[in-house]
C-alpha cells in the first residue's frame, strides 16, 4: 500500500530529526488524527449551524442568532449541552451493541474523511484504490444504524433500522455505479490521480452527457445514502418519531447527528473531487497560489451541500415502496445504460478536453 503522509514536510522533517524513526511515525500519525478529529468536530458543528441558518432562510425565519456573533457559537453550546445530558436507554436493550452503534457510524465517516485531497498537499491518506475504499467504508456506516435500531429494543427504532437496511443496500448500488462511470473516464481509482486528470477540464465537462447523468444519479443516491430528506424514511419524524435513534440521548445521539452531517460533507466532497475538479480552480486562474485550492475545494463542496439542504427543506418524503421503485426500476437500469454510453464515449474518444 502506498501511504503518503504529506501534510507539511516541515513538521515531518522536524519530528524525524528529534526522535527515533518509529516514535516519530507514531507521533505524526497521532498528530494527524488529532487534526482530522478537530476538522471533523468543527466541520460537523458548523454544518449543523449552516443547515439551521439555511432552513431558517427557506422558512422565513432568522435562525439561531443569539449565542456568539450571528449565532456562531450556537452549535458549540448545543454540543456542550448534549455532553452534559444524561444517557438514557431502555432496560431490555442489548447494552453492548446499543453502545457500540454510535461508534460504528462516527468512525466510518471519520475514516472516509481522511481520503480527500483538500488541496494538493493536504491529504492524509492517498490510497490507490481511493474510490473503492470510500464506497466500502461508507457502507459500513449502515451497520451502526442497524445495530442501533435493533439493539434499542424499540419497535419504532426497529422499523427505522429495517428501512435503513433496504435503503442503503439499494442506493449503495447507484452510488457505486455512478462513480464507476466516472472512473471509466478518469482511468484511476486514486483520488489525487483523478484530480490530476481534471487539469484538462473537469470530468463533468470531459464526460458531458453521461457525466451529467451520472452526477444527477449520484446526487440522488448520495442524498439517500445520508438518510436525508426526501429520503429520510429512517428517521421519518411523522411516522416513526425519531426512527433508529429514538432511544439514544446525550452524546450518543450527538454522534449519530454529527455523523449525518459529516456524511453529507463526504457525499458532497466526493462529488466535488470526481465531477468538479476537486481543489482545481476554474480554468486554472489561481494555480500559482496552491493554498487557494482549499478555498476552491470547500467552495464547491459547500455549493453541493447547499443543494442537498435545498432538497431537504423543499421536498416531501417518499414512501418506502416508492423509494425502492425509484432505485430498482429507474436509477439502476439508467445507470447501467449510462456506463455503456460512457464506455462508448471514452472508446471513441468523444470526450471534451481543453
Amino acid at each position, binding site marked *: 500500500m502506498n501511504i503518503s503522509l504529506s501534510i507539511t514536510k516541515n513538521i515531518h522533517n522536524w519530528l524525524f530529526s528529534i526522535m527515533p524513526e518509529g516514535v516519530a511515525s507514531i507521533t505524526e500519525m497521532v498528530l494527524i488524527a488529532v487534526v482530522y478529529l478537530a476538522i471533523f468536530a468543527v466541520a460537523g458543528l458548523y454544518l449543523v449551524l449552516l443547515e439551521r441558518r439555511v*432552513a431558517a432562510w*427557506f*422558512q*422565513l*425565519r432568522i435562525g439561531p442568532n443569539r449565542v456568539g456573533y450571528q449565532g456562531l457559537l450556537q452549535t458549540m453550546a448545543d454540543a456542550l449541552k448534549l455532553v452534559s445530558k444524561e444517557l438514557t436507554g431502555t432496560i431490555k436493550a442489548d447494552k453492548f451493541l446499543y453502545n457500540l452503534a454510535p461508534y460504528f457510524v462516527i468512525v466510518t465517516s471519520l475514516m472516509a474523511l481522511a481520503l480527500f485531497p483538500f488541496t494538493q498537499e493536504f491529504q492524509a491518506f492517498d490510497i490507490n484504490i481511493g474510490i473503492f475504499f470510500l464506497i466500502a467504508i461508507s457502507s459500513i456506516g449502515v451497520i451502526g444504524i442497524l445495530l442501533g435500531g435493533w439493539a434499542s429494543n424499540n*419497535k*419504532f427504532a426497529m*422499523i427505522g433500522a*429495517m428501512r435503513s437496511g433496504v435503503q442503503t443496500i439499494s442506493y449503495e448500488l447507484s452510488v457505486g455505479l455512478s462513480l464507476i462511470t466516472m472512473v471509466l473516464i478518469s482511468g484511476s481509482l486514486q483520488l489525487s490521480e483523478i484530480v490530476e486528470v481534471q487539469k484538462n477540464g473537469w470530468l463533468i465537462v470531459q464526460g458531458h452527457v453521461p457525466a451529467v447523468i451520472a452526477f444527477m444519479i449520484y446526487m440522488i443516491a448520495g442524498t439517500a445514502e445520508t438518510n436525508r*430528506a*426526501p429520503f*429520510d*424514511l429512517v428517521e*421519518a*419524524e*411523522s*411516522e*416513526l*418519531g425519531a426512527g433508529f435513534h429514538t432511544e439514544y440521548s446525550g452524546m450518543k445521539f450527538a454522534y449519530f447527528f454529527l455523523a449525518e452531517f459529516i456524511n453529507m460533507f463526504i457525499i458532497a466532497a466526493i462529488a466535488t473531487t470526481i465531477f468538479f475538479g476537486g481543489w482545481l480552480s476554474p480554468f486554472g486562474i489561481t494555480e500559482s497560489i496552491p493554498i487557494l485550492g482549499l478555498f476552491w475545494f470547500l467552495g464547491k463542496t459547500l455549493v453541493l451541500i447547499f443543494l442537498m439542504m435545498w432538497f431537504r*427543506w*423543499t*421536498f*416531501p*418524503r*417518499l*414512501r*418506502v*415502496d*416508492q423509494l425502492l421503485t425509484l432505485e430498482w426500476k429507474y436509477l439502476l437500469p439508467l445507470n447501467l445504460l449510462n456506463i455503456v454510453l460512457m464506455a462508448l464515449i471514452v472508446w471513441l474518444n468523444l470526450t471534451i478536453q481543453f
Partner: protein
Amino acid sequence: MDTTTIKSNFKSEEYFINMGPQHPATHGVLRLLLTIDGEIIKKVEPDLGYIHRSIEKMCERDSYQQIVHLTDRMDYLSSHINNEAVCLTVENALQLEIPERVKVIRTILGELTRLASHQLWWGVMGMDVGALTTYFYGFRDRELINDIFEETCGARLTMNYNIPGGLMFDIHPNFVQRTKDFITHFKTKLPEYDRLLTGNVIFQKRMKGVGILSKEDAISFGASGPVGRGSGYSCDVRKHHPYSAYNQVTFNEVLKTEGDSLARYQVRIEEMWESMAIIEQLIDNIPEGEYKVATNAVIKLPKGEFYQKVETARGELGVYINSTGTKNPYRLKFRSPGFSNLSLLNHIAVGGKIGDLVASMATLDLVIPDIDR
C-alpha cells in the same frame, strides 16, 4: 399497492405498535393501536379519551351562556364556529330575532376561522409528508388572521366572541380594513401554497390513490366537511341548511369525486378561495344596527328538543339540546365532525404503508379535543 396482494411463501408475522398518545403525526393525544405486517397496515384501532373532559356532563350543570365558553375547547381551530353553533341553538329555541349585522359579522368571522384552520392544516399536512417548510408558510398567513381576531375579539385562539343573542361587543373600527388587507395579501400567497407543495411530484405520488373513500362509504361513515366532499358527497351544511348570512352569499360547494387523499387536500385548498369570496361579498356591506339583542340574565329554554347543524372547518357540528324548561339543559350532545371522520380511518388505512396512514390521517384533519370532547 400491488405488493400487498402478492402471496408470499415466507412466513410473515404481524405485530402491534403503539402510535401515540405522544407521537408527532397524531397531532395531540390520539393513540392508535396499529397491527402491522412489516410496513403494511392490517388494522388501526383508535384509543381515545386522553383529553376527555366530559364537556357534555359539564353542560348539564352550566347555564347557556357558560356552555358557549366550553365549546371553544372542543375544536379549538374552529372555536368561533363552535360558539356560533350553541348560540344559534339557543336563539332558535328562544325564537329571538337576530340583527342582520350580527349575522353578517358571524359569517365573516366564521369564514376567517375556516381560513385560519385550513392554513394550519396545510402547514402540518406538509410536515406529515415530510415537507417541513410548509408549516412556516401556513403560520405566516394564519398570524395575520389571528391579529384580526385579537383586535376584535380580544383573543387569538379561543375567541368567546359570540353570546346567545348576538356578539359580546361591536367589531373594532379597524376590522373591515384589516380583513380587506388580509384578503388582498392572501390572494397572492395562496398560489404559493400550490407552487410549494401541490405540484411537487413526490407529494402527488404520496397522495394520489391513497386512502380511497367511496361516496357510499363516506355517507355510511357519517363523513362530513372536506372529507365527505373529497368523495363527491355533497354535505356542506352552509348550502343545505343555511344559517347566519350564508343564504345571502353565492359560493360553490367544492366537490371532488376521486375520494383519495389528494382530493381531500384539493377540496381544502379550493375552499380557501371560496371562503375569501364569501368574505369579499360581505365585508363591504356590514349592515348598521345593534350588535346584540337583550336576553334575560338567566336564559331558560322552553321545554323541547333543539338541534342545530353548522359547518366547521372539519365538517358538520351538531348541537342537540334537550330542555325541560330550566336554566340548564337536561341533556346536551355535540355531534363532532372529527369523531365520525376518525371512525373511517381504519377503513381507508388498511392495506397501505405506515407512510400512507400518516398521509391519510393528515387529510382527515383531526383535532383531538374535538373527538374527545
